[in-house]
């Protein structure tokens, strides 16, 4: 006589075969409870529903549109990039800051020279 664990194991094996599309390979269950549960699982698997073609096509179109939007966003972000991945704006800001610093140092240097 099989215990509950064995019965469960048998039912789960049968279920996997049915869901993998190998329902014909299901072994004849050894007890009535497992047999009727297996048959019910087979019935349930046959009652699975599919989305309508219209829904599938509309959702696909939405996703493609969304993907294109993401791509555009990413591209506009890429255009801001200069060499070595430095953003153009940051590069300008850095250059300007360096230039101002250089001018200030030059002025100080000239003033010191004049005072001497």
């Amino acid at each position, binding site marked *: 006589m099989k215990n509950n664990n064995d019965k*469960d194991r048998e039912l789960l094996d049968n279920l996997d075969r049915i869901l993998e599309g190998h329902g014909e390979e299901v072994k004849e269950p050894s007890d009535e409870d497992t047999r009727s549960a297996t048959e019910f699982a087979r019935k349930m698997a046959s*009652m699975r*529903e599919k*989305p309508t073609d219209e829904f599938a096509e509309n959702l696909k179109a939405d996703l*493609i549109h969304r993907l294109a939007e993401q791509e555009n966003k990413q591209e506009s972000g890429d255009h801001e990039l200069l060499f070595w991945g430095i953003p153009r704006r940051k590069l300008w800001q850095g250059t300007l800051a360096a230039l101002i610093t250089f001018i200030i140092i030059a002025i100080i240097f000239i003033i010191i020279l004049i005072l001497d």
Partner: protein
Amino acid sequence: MADRQVNMDSVQGTVPDTVSLAEEFGRLYEIYLPKIYQYARYRVAGKEAAEDLTSDIFNKALDGFRRFDPGKAAFSTWIFSIARNTIIDYYRKHAKESKLIKDTEPEYSLSPDSPEEKLSRSEEIAGLRECILKLNDNEQELISLKFSGGITNREIARVTGLSESNVGTILCRAIRKLRDDFSGWYYEK
């Protein structure tokens, strides 16, 4: 099997550019749309709600697809985790609504021979859905994941955080419960 194919392909690495990202996502969409739709159909009453949830799930999947790491999880585990969380959010937002709204919309997407057969089939499907929605949350979750995704008990364990043996035990109990409940529903009819 499709799932295995996806896993094998996904292991090739992260998606390098938009063209291959679109191609890869498009391929996975074709495979997983029926599974995710079926999952949503099991979990909520109403075809429109199931369609809205399916859209949400795929939009979230698309947003996160660049970050999806096939080395960490199979695509099926990843997308069913998104699906599960989306359903949890849905019920959080619709907490006051009953799960057991009768779903009487006939399913004309099925194609048995006669209109009578079509009607009785759609009644059976509605009855089954009613029985599923009467299961407790765990049972409902596992039945939906198993029958819609056809995923392994190990993957279900990863998605739900339960142990693999627990998944097996709950699944068997839920199938037996559904069998009894459904035959009761059938005789009432």
